[in-house]
């Protein structure tokens, strides 16, 4: 409902922000009346909300959009990116770090990459251990048989 409301004078329904400041009085939203006034929409999303944005906003109003999502959700948005339904995608911590590098302002995303790197290496270590255990268990089973 909210996504469609933006199509025509959204401030009739959503006239204030979360601290009750009127959107019409903010420079950033003062001249925005509908999707026609938004050149590029950037959404920080999780869950299936991107599907709704694409279905209700991009498909119906031809709105240019780009999204920042969690790494888990990024694969769900890949089809929309490849088909050109969304303009760009900042996927997970890696996407955030890449974006920070692109604009030359390293921040939280870049700082978080070492932690993610070690987490990935730990999981790979578990996979290797699991497979070694599996291999030797099977080998021993064959020898006993």
């Amino acid at each position, binding site marked *: 409902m909210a996504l*469609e409301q933006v199509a025509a004078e959204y401030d009739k329904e959503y006239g204030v922000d979360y*601290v009750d400041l009127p959107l019409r009085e903010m420079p950033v939203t003062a001249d925005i009346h509908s999707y026609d006034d938004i050149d590029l929409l950037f959404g920080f999303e999780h869950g299936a909300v991107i599907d709704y944005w694409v279905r209700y906003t991009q498909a119906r109003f031809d709105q240019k959009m780009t999204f920042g999502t969690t790494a888990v959700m990024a694969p*769900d948005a*890949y089809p929309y990116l490849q088909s050109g339904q969304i303009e760009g995608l900042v996927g997970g911590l*890696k996407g955030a770090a890449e974006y920070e590098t692109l604009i030359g302002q390293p921040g939280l995303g870049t700082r978080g*990459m070492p932690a993610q*790197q070690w987490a990935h290496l730990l*999981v790979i270590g578990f996979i290797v251990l*699991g497979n070694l255990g*599996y291999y030797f268990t099977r080998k021993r089973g064959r020898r006993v048989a």
Partner: protein
Amino acid sequence: MKRTVPLLITFLTGFFLIVSFFVPHEPFGQLEQRLLVWFAIVSGFAMLLGVDSLFRAHLRRIIRAREGRWHSLALLLSLVVTLVVGIIGFVKFGSPFHMQSPFMFVYTYGIIPLQATMFALLAFYIASASYRAFRARNTVATLLLVSAVIVMLGRVPIGAAISQFFPVAQEWIMDVPQLAAKRGIQIGAALGAVSMSLRILLGIERSYLS
């Protein structure tokens, strides 16, 4: 009559919603907004029924001293406390979502840390699952295992440091096989949803009436 009227309401509502999706202008655009408001109201009542059912089930468990009663007690206490602070926030600040509202205090200092804890615990489940699931049992499982390792290495700096192959291969896996599978699932799910919707609109699927 008992069946015809609900079927007619279902058909007309679905028909108008489909038309309004493709014609977002008056009078259909307005009608769609109105129907969405009705949907929100009906959803509110459905949620109320859900809360009632949840409350009764857990209260019964506490009264009958069944296993897990302490968890039920924690759930009911949390439910009541959240409801009370929500009402206080509404009365005092006009909305429970006001930043000074006690509801937002519970949300910021209760729910968010608990969710963070849940996510942190997920790391151990993922580690345990990767240990058990990615075993080279056969060719398909080995392919999955190799793909997982390439993606995990390709998405962190050490992958590129080892070899440029990892980020490139990671990108290819995500852009080609992953995307093909994802798109297949999405198209399949959409076709399923369309066929089920048509069955409901045309009155072929009537299980919701029983």
